[in-house]
Structures are given as structure tokens and as C-alpha cells.
């Protein structure tokens, strides 16, 4: 029971940013926090960090309230770049590291380790504004990781990184998890969350509309997909009862179905029309769940 949020509500005047949110993160758990823009993710993070106080509910870290004395245990990666543009990389990281309770020598060691690991040691004495967006993001990540935090809060960690760097960062985050750190991160990229997180929740207008382990979430969603590949047009199958939605492509089609009985009807229908090359019942992707729950306009 490392990080616990119990019935947390945050109101700004009339507007309710976070409504009765309950989260429980075990130690060493990687938790995905999804939601469209304005769903209340950043507000939640700010409450966990103690920058805002909740109107109702309790937030505890290992049973204690989070305060400035616990800040050395926490690493925070804000959604937007938060670095001094005119300061040199090393100077800047030493400063931020010292603020998180490191001494200068430890900070320097840690910085050179991470710069090497992210393959950017040549930027040690460059100014941050001279770096590309992706490289700035790496520096920002180092600022969050360098003091070896026990709780990592990552707001959109992968934004602005190319696929190679995304893999590098994923590995670093997984290493942290394996060392026992508790990680809470938000992302718009459903595939990253699917790959990394055991537990997740989806926020919508301040409310938690989905939560649980990845498997539970998928199972409880009910709907599944049927993928059929064939050499002929499959649009005739759209009207079979129980088909909720269909996406046609050159290779074939993907049907969203209500339950598995529909899959059999689809297979029969397709076979009646001719031979098929591929038939598969897929679990719904997180993307599907997210879109279905939050609405198409926020995909």
C-alpha cells in the first residue's frame, strides 16, 4: 500500500476537476493513468505532489501525508518542459538534484551515468535551449530519475521522443520498477500503457470511469473484435445482428461484436460467400475501450 488516494475530490469554485477518486498503488507497481485533455490528470498529480490540497479525501504515501520532507523520495516529470533554457545541462541538473536532497558529488555521478545511458554525454555543458525537443525531454527525465526516487510520477513521459528513444526510456522505467519503485504515469499512447502497466484507470471529466488490472478492464468491457481477411468484399456482413461496428480495409475487415456467439455467425456468413485467408477473435485494444468510454472526439 505505497500510494493511496481515498475518495479525493478537488473543486475549483463551481468546477469539479477531480471527483471522488480512489487509487491504490502497491509498491513496485506501474500504474497507467489515462484520460483526455482536461480530464483531471495533472490536477491529480499536483495533489499527490502537495502543490494543491484536496477538498475532500486523503492522499498518503506509505501511510504518511506527502509534504516537502518526503520530496527527496519523489521524482516528477511534468507534462511540459520544465527546465531553465539558459542554464547548462549539468549545472541545472545539479541544482535540481540538490533540491531533491542530493549532495553535489552524488548528483554529478548520477548525471554522468544517466547522460551516458541516454547516449547524450556530449550535452553536459550545453545550454538546454540549444538542444532538440527530444533531447530536452531526456534531460527532463534525468531530472526526475537522478535522485533514485521511490515514487515516480510521469506526466506524458514519451512525448516528443522517437521510437528508439521511447524504447530506451521504457527500459529505464522498467529498471526502476524492478528495483521496487512505484510508478504512476499518464499517457495518450494506449499502446505504451498496454505494454507497461499492470493497473490502470481512465478518467473522464474528473470521474474515474474505468479502473482495474489490464485483463479485468478488457474482460469487463465485453466487446471483442473479429478480424477477417479475404479476397472479396465483406460489407455484406455489417448487417449480421450483434455487430456493433465495422472497419473495412484492402485486406479485409475488423468487426466489433457484442459477444462470442456473434463471432460464429460472422464466420459462417463469411464462409458462405467464399474462402477466407484469416479469422481471429481479438481482445479489445485499450484504444477501443478508451474511445468507447471517453468518446470519439478525444481519441
Amino acid at each position: 500500500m505505497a500510494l493511496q488516494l481515498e475518495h479525493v475530490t478537488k473543486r475549483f469554485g463551481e468546477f469539479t476537476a477531480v471527483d471522488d477518486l480512489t487509487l491504490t498503488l502497491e509498491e513496485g507497481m506501474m500504474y497507467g493513468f489515462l484520460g483526455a485533455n482536461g480530464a483531471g490528470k495533472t490536477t491529480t498529480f499536483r495533489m499527490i505532489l502537495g502543490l494543491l490540497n484536496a477538498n475532500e479525501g486523503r492522499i498518503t504515501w506509505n501511510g504518511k501525508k506527502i509534504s516537502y520532507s518526503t520530496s527527496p523520495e519523489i521524482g516528477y516529470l511534468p507534462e511540459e518542459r520544465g527546465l531553465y533554457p539558459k542554464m547548462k545541462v549539468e549545472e541545472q541538473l545539479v541544482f535540481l538534484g540538490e533540491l531533491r536532497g542530493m549532495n553535489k558529488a552524488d548528483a554529478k555521478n548520477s548525471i554522468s551515468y544517466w547522460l551516458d545511458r541516454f547516449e547524450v554525454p556530449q550535452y553536459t555543458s550545453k545550454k538546454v535551449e540549444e538542444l532538440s525537443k527530444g533531447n530536452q525531454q531526456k534531460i527532463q527525465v534525468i531530472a526526475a530519475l537522478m535522485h533514485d526516487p521511490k515514487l515516480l510520477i510521469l506526466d506524458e513521459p514519451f512525448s516528443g521522443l522517437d521510437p528508439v528513444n521511447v524504447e530506451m526510456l521504457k527500459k529505464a522505467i522498467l529498471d526502476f520498477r524492478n528495483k521496487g519503485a512505484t510508478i504512476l504515469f499518464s499517457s495518450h499512447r494506449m499502446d505504451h500503457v498496454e505494454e507497461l502497466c499492470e493497473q490502470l484507470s481512465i478518467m473522464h471529466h474528473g470521474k474515474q470511469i474505468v479502473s482495474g488490472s489490464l485483463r479485468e478492464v478488457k474482460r469487463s468491457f465485453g466487446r471483442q473484435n473479429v478480424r477477417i481477411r479475404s479476397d472479396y468484399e465483406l460489407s455484406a456482413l455489417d448487417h449480421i445482428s450483434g455487430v456493433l461496428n465495422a472497419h473495412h480495409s484492402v485486406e479485409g475487415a475488423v468487426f466489433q461484436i457484442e459477444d462470442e456467439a456473434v463471432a460464429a455467425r460472422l464466420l459462417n456468413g463469411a464462409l458462405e460467400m467464399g474462402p477466407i485467408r484469416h479469422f481471429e477473435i481479438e481482445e479489445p485494444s485499450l484504444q477501443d475501450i478508451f474511445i468507447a468510454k471517453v468518446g470519439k472526439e478525444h481519441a
Partner: protein
Amino acid sequence: MREFGIIFKQAFLSKAKTKSFVITTAIMIAAIFLFANISKIIDTVQTLTGSGDSEQVLYVKDDSGELVDRLSAQLSDVKVELTNEPKETILDKVKSEEIDSLLTVSVNQQGIINAEYTTMSLMDFAIPMQIQEALQSIQTEMKADELSLTGEQVQTLFTPIEFEQTNVSPSAKSEDELNQARVLVYVLMFVIYLSVIMYSSMIAMDVANEKSSRVMEILISSVSPVKHMFAKVLGIGLLGIVQIVIYGLAGFIALKTSATEVPGGFSDFFSFSDLNIGTLIYAAVFFLLGYFLYATLAALLGSLVSRAEDVQQMIMPMTLLIVAAFIIAATGLGNPEIGYLQYASYFPFFAPLVMFLRVGMLDLPMWEPLLSIAIMLVTIFVLGWFGARVYKGGVLMYGPSRSLKDIKKAIQLGKE
């Protein structure tokens, strides 16, 4: 306390190490040395180019023929040369700047001297005055001769009366002291004014920059906004003190080395024998109080904007306050006892300059500056407390905030 030290160090060092800071300081030091030695430099340039005013020649056309020698004897700085050329020719020479000036003199029937002075130079004030005086005394002599008065008799006629001025107002300094104090107070007032305006807008700028680069979010997740704000104010304050001390030392060395033998130099108006230690201490105290007062205000205002471009607009009311304080104080340089100065010197935002002016120019009873200092301390305390509340919310507030109305919003957010 540890975080406080780190932020304090960073606020100071990150500014002190910048090229712009080093260059500005170097330029200012060069300017101080230049200013202290300005008359020496002008002199050197004049001897080199040979355009010195030592060889001012006055051409005199004297119809009576008896005035030239006496005039020559009276005027020491100017070489007098008699000329017999026609007036028009000489006037042309004056116009073409071949010769400096022409004086036509004659004596009329009543024995009154008639003189006409012609020159091309616009800046010629001293010489005509000397000539006028010289001619006046020549005329007196002539008249005395006419009346057959002796030299002593003439002198008794012109004996000045004995007049002594005493001011019994307890706060007044003697006219002499006042003149000496005026220069020192003016220079220090200007230093206080400039540095308060400069360093407080530096703070507002710094805070806004930290907000716009979003580094603020990281900072205040590891150190409380209140600590951050005061560490910043103190860090930049130290920067200001260091810079002023450097300038002060430069000024001291410059004046010491630019020997005083050149007349008309800066050291004529300002010498270290006049330096009043009390005035200097008051200057330091009022600088510090003025700085903390305005710096706290600036941090508060800086926390309300989210883009560096909006800073100037936001701190405009504050800048106007400092400018108003300076103007009020400057009007008192001539007469530090004007009534409104007394009131202004207890208004905390004007006090750093106005009370300093009064305390530097007048012999005030001790309680007056102390009361003003106490009022400022209380104001700083209140502003610090209020500023911290605004700051706490302000640093989290993003969006097009550029008016003072946002203070309320910021306090609200700070409470949450």
C-alpha cells in the same frame, strides 16, 4: 533551510556568472573612471589639439586710446591687442572665426565708457563679464580722478557691510553644509532609485521566466513557494549589494587617483573630506529597506504573469511608485523643508528616497528616521506575508493573466 540556501545560491550565481552582468559591471566601472577624470581628459585633448582656451585674444578698437592699457592691466586671462583696422574688416574676421572677439570702446562727453562686445562663440559668458567688471572699475577710477578722491576714499565708499545669516530652526544645517550634503545626497538618492528599480524588475522577470519555462512546477514540488520567493529576493539582493559595493570601490579609487589639481573637475564639488559617514549608513539602510519593499512587491507581481513579455506591463504600477518617490525627493533637493516632504517621508513606498533626502539634508531628531524605518519594516512584513499567499497560488496559475484582479484568484488558488 537547506533548500533555501540552494535557491539563494542559484539566484545569486546564475545572475552573477552571466556575461551580461560582467560586461555591464565593467562598463559602469569604466564610466566611473571616465567621469572622475573628465576634466583631465578634456585638458589633455585640448593641449594635444591646441585648441585650449589659454590663448583667448581680445581685439580692442579704442577710439579714445587711453583705455587699452588699463584694460590690459585689469584682465589677466585674456590677451588684449589693440587694432586700428576698420571695424568692418575686423567684424568679418570675427565672423570667419579668425579672431575670437572684438571690443569697441569709447568715452562720451559725460565721461561714461561705451563698450560693444562681438563674438561668434555661443558659450562665451565669462569673458564679457570680466570685461564689464574691468571697465566698471576703470570708470570708477576715472571718476575718482575727476573728483580728486584718493584711493582710500574710494575704498571706503565701497566697503561692504558685515552681514551674517543665522538660522535658528533646529533642523537646519548651515548653507555650507547643505551645499556639501546636497551633492552626496543626490548621488546616493540616484543610486538607491536606480538599483531598487533595476533589481526588483530583475526579480519579477526571473519569477516570470521560471513560470514560463515551467521549471517552477518542479521547484515548488521540492521547496515551498514561500521559501522559494524569499530565497530569490535575498539572492538578488546580495547581487545588488555586491554590484553597488564594486561601483562604490571603483568610485573611491577613481576619485583618489584622479588628483584634484585640475580645477573644474568633479572633485571640486565632491571631496572625501565632506563624506558624512552618517549619511552613508542611512543610504545603506534605506537602500536595503527600499529594495526589500519593492522586491517583495515585484515577486508578487511576477508570480501573476505566465509570460516574460507581460512582466513590464504588470510591474508598471510599481515602477510608477518608485518614479513618483524619486520626483518628490528631487523637488526637495533645493528646499528639504517643504511641507509635503514630511508626510511623504512616512509613506512606506516613498520613504526610502524621501526620508533619506530629509535625513541627509537636515538635522532631524532621531525618532523621525526611526519611525519611518519602523513603518517600512512593518510594510515589508505585511507585504511579505501577503506576497507569499499570492505567490503560492500565482505560480500555479497559467493563462492570459495580466491584471491586478488576478491577485484574488491567486490567493484563492494558494489556499487550495
